[in-house]
């Protein structure tokens, strides 16, 4: 493979390289950043990459925007494929809504937890969870002790016998 062909390959598929690069940046941001807003930004980048991917897909080399021309020579005009644009318009709307909803959630999270770092929020969650677990363990122990007392009273005479045998044989 000659250098020229590599270069050709690269520049010929230029739009895809951009898409992949953008996508990876977005993905990496989502994975690596704790800040919820940054995560959303990463998500947006990721989505934008897909938008670019779709739009570039509809491009035909030498074509113009798909607006119907009238007049002389309009029969020879080469238009870009309009359908991907339309599709991506919908996807953009979805993206905007997602971002808005995500940001709204971030605002609420900030109000509820006082932080928008995911680590802190998770940590706070774990703490409440642990408190709850401990509380529950305590309550369970109390309930069990009470129940054992009760069942010991009720069941005084016909429970399991091993314990008794054991005591007898030792005596």
């Amino acid at each position, binding site marked *: 493979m000659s250098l020229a062909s590599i270069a050709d390959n690269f520049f010929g598929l230029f739009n895809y390289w951009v898409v992949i690069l953008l996508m990876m940046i977005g993905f990496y941001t989502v994975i690596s950043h704790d800040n919820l807003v940054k995560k959303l930004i990463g998500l947006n980048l990721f989505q934008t990459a897909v938008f670019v991917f779709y739009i570039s897909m509809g491009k035909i080399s030498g074509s113009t*925007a798909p607006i119907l021309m009238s007049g002389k020579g309009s029969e020879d005009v080469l238009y870009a494929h309009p359908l991907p644009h339309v599709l991506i318009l919908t996807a953009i709307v979805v993206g905007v*809504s997602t971002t808005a*909803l995500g940001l*709204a959630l971030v*605002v*609420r999270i900030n109000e509820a937890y006082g932080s928008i770092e995911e680590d802190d929020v998770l940590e706070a969650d774990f703490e409440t969870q642990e408190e709850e677990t401990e509380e529950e363990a305590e309550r369970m122990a109390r309930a069990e002790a009470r129940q054992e007392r009760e069942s010991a009273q009720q069941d005084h005479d016909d429970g399991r016998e091993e314990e008794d045998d054991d005591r007898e044989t030792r005596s």
Partner: protein
Amino acid sequence: MREHTVLRVVTKVLIAPIILFALYVQFHGDYSPGGGFQAGVVFAAAIILYALIFGLAEARRAVSPNLLRITGALGALIFAGTGVYAMLRGGNFLDYDYLAHDAVHGQHYGLLLVEFGVGLTVVSVITSIFYVFAGRGRRNDDEQPPGDAR
């Protein structure tokens, strides 16, 4: 930014053309690039600009959140209603051919109505989103839940 006279004046001058442009994009959308989405966003930009310069309270007085809720829902209803109307006239959902006596007019009306619905909803939703975020932390009495941001 109420003190910046330049900004206030320029804004006052600009808002009308922005809205006009939005309307152009809206109603010329079936012949040239444009349509409800774009027009809606441009229109919302005008409102947002107004809010930025003259303050949120002022903007809320001009375009109240309650109004936005109603127009947003109405927009969606117009969109879906057009489709249903086509159904009632014997066509499929959103089949504009059935909206008028002949297909060409039908297509025209249908497109116009649907785009109008879309535009109305987009204006309302974008502005609502702006209100919600901008109003957060200042006035909690009429806060909107995130569920509103569709």
